[in-house]
């Protein structure tokens, strides 16, 4: 008897809930979609760098934090918003130059895992530097994004979330065009395919790397603004990188649309699981649910949703 009621709790009751309160369910889904977009923004930075240099850049989370810290720090010094934005972009570009000059250049042709480890070292470096320069207090970020709530068909929406979704969409569109139709975008893809072959046909590796790290820094800035405006600029921002990882493997490391779709799946799945199944096991399953989802998913598609097919030869 107890077993049946358990089955009921797991497999029936949540779905009954979903159907009987469709508006609440819609709100949950929308909240998931919007969180998912925020995840996608972070995951995008990873994808860009992985595509162009084959480096799994763990420091993306720290870059998000650093970009947001720089922006807030500049604004606290009395710099107008637009100038502060430009300043933050400039700082991220300088960072890209420094990374290329002092790190990547010395690690060409090393194993992936060595590069990965180096970016973890970079994470510490950027975090320490950012907090040393700008301080480690929680800072509020307000660049004038409206955050009024309003109702559409009984569903509560927030302007800020819509704004975040919109800017995410624009960013993705721009990046997609950039990667597919520009000369430098094609060069980026060539480098991603094979460092040495790309060099052999005359693609300047250094320029490409600086470009792609700058673009990733810019994406990090956008992600930092969104997350910072939502929950304040603080150390925990760098931890959302961990949340972006399941998004990445779900979507595939090399795919920009994958990052978006993966983000949405993770965001929605996580919210639904937390609200409908979370209470059964004591809650707080958001921490690991995304990983489990990605793990189960990978068993069926090892390269992720949109990743390039892994071909193995002896």
């Amino acid at each position, binding site marked *: 008897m107890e077993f049946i009621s358990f089955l009921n709790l797991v497999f029936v009751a949540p779905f009954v809930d979903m159907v009987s309160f469709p508006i609440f369910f819609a709100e949950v889904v929308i909240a998931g979609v919007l969180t998912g977009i925020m995840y996608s923004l972070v995951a995008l930075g990873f994808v860009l760098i992985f595509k162009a240099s084959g480096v799994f850049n763990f420091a993306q989370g720290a870059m998000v934090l650093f970009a947001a810290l720089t922006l807030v720090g500049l604004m606290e010094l009395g710099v107008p918003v637009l100038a502060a934005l430009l300043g933050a972009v400039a700082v991220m570009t300088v960072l890209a130059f420094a990374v290329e000059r002092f790190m990547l250049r010395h690690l060409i042709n090393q194993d992936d895992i*060595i590069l990965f480890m180096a970016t973890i070292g970079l994470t*510490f470096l950027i975090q*320490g530097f950012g907090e040393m320069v700008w301080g480690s207090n929680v800072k509020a970020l307000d660049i004038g994004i409206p955050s009024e709530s309003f109702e559409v068909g009984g569903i509560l929406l927030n302007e800020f979330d819509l704004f975040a979704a919109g800017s995410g969409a624009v960013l993705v569109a721009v990046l997609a065009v950039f990667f597919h139709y520009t000369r430098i975008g094609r060069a980026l893809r060539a480098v991603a395919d094979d460092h040495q072959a790309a060099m052999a046909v005359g693609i300047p590796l250094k320029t490409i790397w600086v470009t792609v790290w700058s673009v990733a820094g810019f994406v990090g800035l956008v992600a930092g603004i969104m997350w910072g405006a939502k929950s304040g600029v603080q150390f925990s921002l760098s931890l959302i990188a961990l949340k972006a990882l399941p998004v*990445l*493997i779900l979507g595939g490391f090399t795919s920009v649309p994958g990052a978006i779709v993966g983000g949405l799946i993770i965001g929605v799945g996580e919210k639904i699981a937390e609200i409908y199944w979370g209470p059964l096991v004591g809650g707080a399953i958001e921490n690991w649910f995304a990983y489990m989802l*990605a793990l189960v998913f990978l068993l069926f598609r090892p390269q992720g949703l949109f990743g390039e097919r892994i071909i193995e030869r002896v």
Partner: protein
Amino acid sequence: MLYRETGQFKISYAADQSVFPIAQDRWFIAAALAFAFLVVPWIANEYMLQAVLIPLLIFSMAAIGLNLLVGYAGQLSLGTGGFMAVGAYMTYKLTTAFPDLNIIVAFLLAGLVAAGVGLVFGIPSLRIKGFYLAVATLASQFFLLWLFNKVAWFYNYNSSGTITAPPREMFGVVVTGPTATAEVRYTVALSIVVVFAIIAKNLVRGRIGRSWMAVRDMDIAAEIIGIRPFQTKLMAFAISSFYCGVAGAMLVFLWLGSAETEAFSINESFNVLFMVIIGGLGSILGSFLGAAFIVGLPIFLTNAPQWFGAAMPIDLQKHIEIMLFGSMIIFFLIVEPHGLARLWQITKQKLRLWPFPY
């Protein structure tokens, strides 16, 4: 001249297969062990043991475990913290449920449980490779910690949610708990680590280790020459998790005394991975060197300013410490991507020929 064999004088297979073919190596290892067992407990003070040597031993153990998996079997894993937590919590359960159980036996049983958990989380490794696998193993990290936080059974329903090492005796000496002296805990940790380092060293020279390395270098080719990749990978996950589990148990019972799941956070996983990579992938000696580096560096960075008489605000110092830690790691990876063990190997090659390099 001093450090070489001066030719091939092996007259038996046993000599050919010895772990340390060079006589000086054997003497050195024997002397180092004698020093560590007999001299260190008498001369080292409480701070030295508690802050440096015990964590060094414990993390060496974890690093050996992870090195078996990453360095020998080629399966990148970020779940070390989770497996260490399994070892710690299982030891806690075992030793509180059976107070008469020898604590070493409890460690080993907890290690076996960790190995079982490692088996389960190793299953995806057949289909998933590289970074995909690394991220997949993060699932174990987060899931296991969540489990130990949420299910009160694991910490015996106490209100604080921490596990505390109860006092347990061995040969009439208190080994764990608040009353155990640092010297005793050091000696126990050292004994465990030495035994398991020897086992690991022999494991990787034998059939299992060779099949791991074959799978690491190219798993399809390994499969074709008759190595079963699934069993081999699962074996690597199980044995690696066993080592990590024992290390986790030692972490709580021989070092910290009490801990929450926080002690096994993702940062620990990264730290152990750093040890493996900086020490040298695929090297048992490297695991020790890497652990010494990662355990020692923060302590050095904390204390160094005082030696030079430079006083600075505590938070500034903390930030500089983090920055230096990060840059040292990058620096080491650039200078010697194959780790400290490779540096030692190069030195050894040079020494063998010295002073007649022709």
